């Protein structure tokens, strides 16, 4: 029997790390992530989780501890948000470069200045090119499920890359929802024991990890990461299927989720919790006889190019929602990427919800009307004050 708890997104993430039986946790508190590591500290203190809980002085150190631990073959977990993720920036490359399957929860939050603790995606989008897999979730159940899946993906021999599971700050981190908690034994059986073949600490088999990468070999290590990202697409899809066989829940094909795409000329493309609002609008419009579709991008890295091309081949009006902005280009990250892979399509980019600005049902309807009326590509900021 599964247990259902009414919990926040951060608690769901902590439950997932407990179920995954992590060996080492190192984290530094930052809103809106803090409640996740508080919950984990509680699990360790109560004896519900047998893990080393390392208290550090910064996020830079938190990830560095996870790297050191993962290099010995330990299963590790950390969590952060916003400025904390920005402070981790240089260490993110080391985790992926050393091919360590670390899993991190990111509570998506805007970046200062002005200081803002509310949700947008600028923090994790800014880490796009660090070699981390990024999964954007829609609800608390998906947070728990994705963290469990993340270990299975990261530790796969064909992947061996760290994974960020990104959930919208406050919208999920501080909102309670019913979450089904699988049995710990089942999760442990599903994940199996992590036995690293490439990175381990064994005095009888000494190795050097993180050596100098001279011009003779550095470029090959970069190509290896790119190849692993490419292979991870298949692994993410397989893990999504396998997870659904074990736990009866799945998320699209793992990389993308299509919602009412058939017969819809107008399609919205988005990531994270705003997809829930969009689905409500789609259902409402359907009752009025109007068909609108949603393509939810679940993995921003690896980017599901092939699925996007295939699923949007008949779409006429494409509205891409971005909770981030690339200053000086007046587009969001998703908008830029969609435009680069879909040729000869009308793609309008909508900048929404920066720093916690609400995205309401009316805003989604405005976007749908606007993209249908637009004659050409454009970028618009939605919900700006006069």
């Amino acid at each position, binding site marked *: 029997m599964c247990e259902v708890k009414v919990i926040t997104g951060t608690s769901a993430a902590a439950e997932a790390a407990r179920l995954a039986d992590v060996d080492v946790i190192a984290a530094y508190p930052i809103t809106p992530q803090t409640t996740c590591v508080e919950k984990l500290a509680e699990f360790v203190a109560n004896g519900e989780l047998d893990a080393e809980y390392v208290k550090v002085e910064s996020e830079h150190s938190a990830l560095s501890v996870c790297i050191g631990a993962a290099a010995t073959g330990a299963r590790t977990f950390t969590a952060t948000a916003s400025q904390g993720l920005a402070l981790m920036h240089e260490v993110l490359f080391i985790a992926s470069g050393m091919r360590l399957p670390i899993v991190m929860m990111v509570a998506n939050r805007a970046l200062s200045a002005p200081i803002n603790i509310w949700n947008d995606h600028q923090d994790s989008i800014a880490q796009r090119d660090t070699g981390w897999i990024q999964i954007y979730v829609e609800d608390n159940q998906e947070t728990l499920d994705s963290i469990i899946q993340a270990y299975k993906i990261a530790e796969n021999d064909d992947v061996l890359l760290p994974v960020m599971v990104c959930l919208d700050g406050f919208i999920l981190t501080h909102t309670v929802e019913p979450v089904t908690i699988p049995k710990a034994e089942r999760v442990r059986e599903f994940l199996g024991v992590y036995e690293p073949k*490439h990175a381990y600490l064994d005095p009888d088999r000494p190795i*050097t990890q993180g050596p100098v990468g001279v011009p003779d070999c550095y470029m090959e290590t970069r190509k290896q990461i790119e190849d692993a990202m490419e292979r991870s697409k298949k692994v993410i899809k397989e893990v999504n299927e396998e997870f659904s066989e074990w736990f009866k829940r799945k998320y699209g094909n793992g990389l993308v989720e299509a919602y009412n795409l058939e017969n819809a000329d107008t399609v919205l493309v988005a990531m994270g919790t705003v997809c829930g609002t969009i689905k409500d609008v789609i259902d409402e419009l359907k009752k009025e006889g109007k068909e609108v579709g949603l393509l939810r991008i679940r993995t921003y890295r690896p980017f599901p190019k092939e699925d996007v091309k295939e699923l949007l081949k008949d779409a006429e009006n494409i509205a891409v929602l971005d909770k981030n902005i690339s200053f000086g280009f007046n587009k969001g990250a998703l908008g830029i990427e969609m435009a680069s892979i879909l040729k000869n399509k009308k793609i309008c980019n909508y900048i929404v919800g920066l720093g916690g600005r609400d995205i309401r049902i009316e805003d989604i309807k405005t976007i749908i009307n606007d993209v249908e009326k637009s004659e050409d590509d454009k970028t618009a900021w939605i919900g700006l004050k006069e």
Partner: protein
Amino acid sequence: MVTIAAIIYEPGNSIRNKTGSWRTFRPILDNNKCVKCENCYIFCPEGAIQEDENGNFKIDYDYCKGCLICMNECPVNAITKVREEK
């Protein structure tokens, strides 16, 4: 074939790992032109130039990184360069 994350699985490789592979240009010393002034030996930042038992100067290509300081310092142009083929 580069290993995953360039991890080194065999200890003691620093003895085998010849840093001369960093070189872009290879200095060539013509002992017929050399006047044995020792400038190259003194200026070489890697200690990669040594005098042999016959009094000739020899460049140790295992460790020469191709900085060409020796070529620059040679007063009789006894040292020339060729591009390494990689």
